[in-house]
């Protein structure tokens, strides 16, 4: 499989606080990678380095064989990096449909009219079609999370970065969302998924990465990783099944 994304020796500091510490990782085309780690481990910061919201203090980010370390976030989106936010950032004064239109028009550089059909289809796929004309500000938490996902999809990504998309949802809502993500995976979409709900994650991903204090401490088969002593120590008692 061709390599899609690669970080080499990436570090990120906030003042003197080292949040990402000499981290290297990669993602293959079509692969689904899970990321876990305690609160404050640097997972969201890692996504910001990949999507371009933050620039690393050291190291490089490569995407599709190109060094994109200095590339701005909107250009990374056009190249195919789509992300969702841990705390949803809906465009509250726009309708759900218009939220997707933004991603479709600018993420893929198409004329507005050509985006209507694909956006409507993504709304169907993510279960938001009935809310298409509602203002995004009026959505429930589950709907906001779905909108994060739908909007990122509309931008036509090659890799989808999902940041705790199931966080704060009920068990039933969570398994619904997992179904949706499974369905997206059938199109061959690459994903990196940060999630604290380990069993949901393990049921979808091919590979699991564990981050602690900004360092990569485990990387491999999800079940094997969950059984490793280091992870057992951090995630005391949480089973992968």
């Amino acid at each position: 499989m061709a390599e899609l994304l690669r970080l080499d020796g990436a570090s990120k500091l906030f003042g003197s606080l080292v949040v990402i510490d000499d981290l290297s990782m990669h993602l293959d085309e079509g692969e689904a990678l899970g990321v876990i780690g305690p609160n404050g481990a640097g997972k969201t910061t890692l996504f910001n380095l990949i999507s371009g919201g933050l620039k690393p203090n050291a190291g490089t980010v490569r995407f599709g064989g190109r060094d994109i370390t200095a590339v701005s976030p909107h250009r990374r989106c056009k190249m195919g990096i789509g992300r969702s936010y841990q705390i949803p950032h809906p465009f509250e004064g726009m309708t759900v449909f218009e939220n997707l239109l933004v991603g479709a028009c600018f993420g893929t550089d198409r004329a507005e009219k050509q985006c209507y059909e694909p956006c409507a289809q993504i709304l169907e796929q993510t279960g938001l079609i009935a809310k298409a004309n509602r203002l995004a500000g009026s959505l429930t938490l589950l709907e906001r999370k779905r909108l994060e996902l739908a909007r990122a999809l509309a931008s036509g990504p090659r890799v989808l970065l999902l940041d705790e998309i199931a966080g704060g949802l009920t068990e039933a809502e969570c398994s619904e969302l997992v179904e949706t993500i499974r369905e997206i995976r059938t199109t061959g979409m690459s994903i990196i998924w940060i999630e604290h709900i380990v069993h949901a994650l393990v049921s979808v991903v091919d590979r699991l990465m564990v981050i602690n204090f900004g360092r990569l401490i485990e990387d491999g088969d999800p079940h094997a990783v969950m059984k490793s002593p280091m992870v057992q120590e951090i995630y005391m008692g949480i089973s992968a099944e």
Partner: protein
Amino acid sequence: MKYRVTTATRTSRVAGLVTLAVLVFVALAPQWGTRADLRLIVEFCYFLALAQMWNLLAGYAGLVSVGQQAFVGLGGYGLFVFTIYLGVSPLMAMLLSGIAAAIFALPTAFVVFRLRGAYFAIGTWVVAEVYRLSFAQVSALGGGSGKSLPISVIRSIADSRAEREVLIFYVGLAVAVFATGIVYWILRSRHGLALTAIRDSEPASESLGVNNFNAKLVIYVIAAAVTGFVGALIFIQKLRISPDAAFALTDWTAYVIFIVVIGGIGRIEGPIIGTIVFFVLQEFLAELGTWYLMILGIMAVVIMLKAPQGLWGLVADRFGIQFFPVQRRLHVEATRDKEA
């Protein structure tokens, strides 16, 4: 499944007709109005145009400028420079003044776009002050005490005073319609999607492929051009310019902010309603002098606290009406057609 997207609503079609009727009536003002009426309508028009531009900046692009008087002043002085020193005809000079203001907006943006939030606001004000102090140094333009438009230039607008007033009236009406129209057109275009997205969340719009910086810069330059043209219009009506009048914070920005806040920020109808309210208040309260300003200030604060969506927002949200609809509504046809 078939999908259809619409923007117009029944009220918007009715509103379109009403707007047209009002416009025709106002356009006939030289037939029915006195000279004072024409003057008042021109003032109404330039405040409306300034308010539309400020709303576009602050209400959509998130650029809360308190320095738009910079462009009014540049446009006003542009008129004097182009007509007196370059011998350009007044109407052409007004257009060139708008273009000049847009050109000045680029280096200005280079400075102020590095600043965020409150610092951006202060930065725009500082830049406007720099322009004011600079023009006060130019003795060819009358320095600090200012300059009048020479008789020869005034004559070149039109021969008689009445003709001049009618001409200025139509230019005023045109710029108000143009300012409102261009905002409507921008918001309905693809660029409008980006702007509205920026208004609601800058990080999200950027990570969905919107070039926030460029989107804002385009709006800043357009607003400067229209504001500069309005500046030229203001001073062709006043026939006299000085740095203090041209770069007046109260007249060209504070009143304008009041108008937009009262009417409803982030909506095209807001500036229209706000300008009407502003002129009604001015009619009844102007004799109160300083008190008038204080009443305006208090009103603005109360509206900001109690109804941040403005007067138009109160009405529109309650009855769900939009005179200038920009929302794209998705209709799903065939099999299931029961969406909200």
